[in-house]
């Protein structure tokens, strides 16, 4: 589907979930959706025969700590791709600092499991309904979430294990 018709389709069909259209990401469509409607939106675009977004290519997050124009501090980004239609849709959801949590996408795409653990580990955003949300890259006992912009880049933590 071409980007204009794709955006039009998403906006008209899922009007109650979509907040607005985000700037194109290198020629691919991007939409912002409501946090409360995220899980149903993701499940719907996956099974929608016209969109057929059957692959979750990536799931990541951003920290807009020093961006005054941003109302919410975090943004979680889903990169969805359709193998049959060869089109891509970026789904963004804004997450406030006071309650950093979104619904887990694992029931929709099992591939979201490790991505969500990584986002939890690095940004401290919780995914409600995730089957086992624990750190994936950093060790147990690590304090804080290192990719948050307010984590001091040169902060040292005690080394774990038999070293101490």
């Amino acid at each position, binding site marked *: 589907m071409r980007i204009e018709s794709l955006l039009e389709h998403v906006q008209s069909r899922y009007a109650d979930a979509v907040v607005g259209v985000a700037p194109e990401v290198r020629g691919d469509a991007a939409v912002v959706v409501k946090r409360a409607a995220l899980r149903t939106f993701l499940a719907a675009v996956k099974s929608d025969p016209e969109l057929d977004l059957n692959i979750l290519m990536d799931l990541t997050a951003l920290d807009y700590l020093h961006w005054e124009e941003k109302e919410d501090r975090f943004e979680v980004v889903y990169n969805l791709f359709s193998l049959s239609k060869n089109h891509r849709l970026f789904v963004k959801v804004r997450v406030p600092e006071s309650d950093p949590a979104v619904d887990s996408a694992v029931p929709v795409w099992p591939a979201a499991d490790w991505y969500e653990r990584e986002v939890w580990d690095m940004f401290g955003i919780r995914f409600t309904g995730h089957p086992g949300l624990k750190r994936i890259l*950093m*060790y147990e006992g690590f304090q804080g979430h290192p990719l948050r912009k307010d*984590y001091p880049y040169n902060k040292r933590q005690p080394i774990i294990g038999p070293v101490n």
Partner: protein
Amino acid sequence: MGKVAEGQVSVEKFSFMTTTLNDAIGWARKYSIFQYPFVTACCGMEYMSTACSHYDVDRFGAGFPRFSPRQSDVLFVVGTISHKMAPVLKTIYEQMCEPKWVVAFGVCTCTGGFYDNYATVMGIDTIIPVDVYIPGCPPRPENVLDGLMKLQDKIQRQKQAF
């Protein structure tokens, strides 16, 4: 020097012999380095090129990597050590038998290098003792051989425990 069994004579009694023996053992040890390559990152490439025939560490008697710490004399720490890897490195070091030496290969192992961040150990000497530091990112093979010769010097000159 351990206790001497009844009927035996301590080696220390032969002071003229101890010094010669010391040299002989140092000579033997420095030319039969069994190394344990603890390779974690990009420096490994340079380690390999040093170890292979072009630069040929076997000329220095160090051509025999052992992949068991219990059989090796020198621990070559090659590449970035992360906080998650630090306990493993420490365990490997402790598994080695005396006498043992440690070579820090590359700036990552010497000081942490340019990784001033949440994941990297700022120099392996914060967790284990180091005998020779070979800086460079990665060090050139000549540099590595230089470090190896310095280590041999050190082994030769130290008071051997036997």
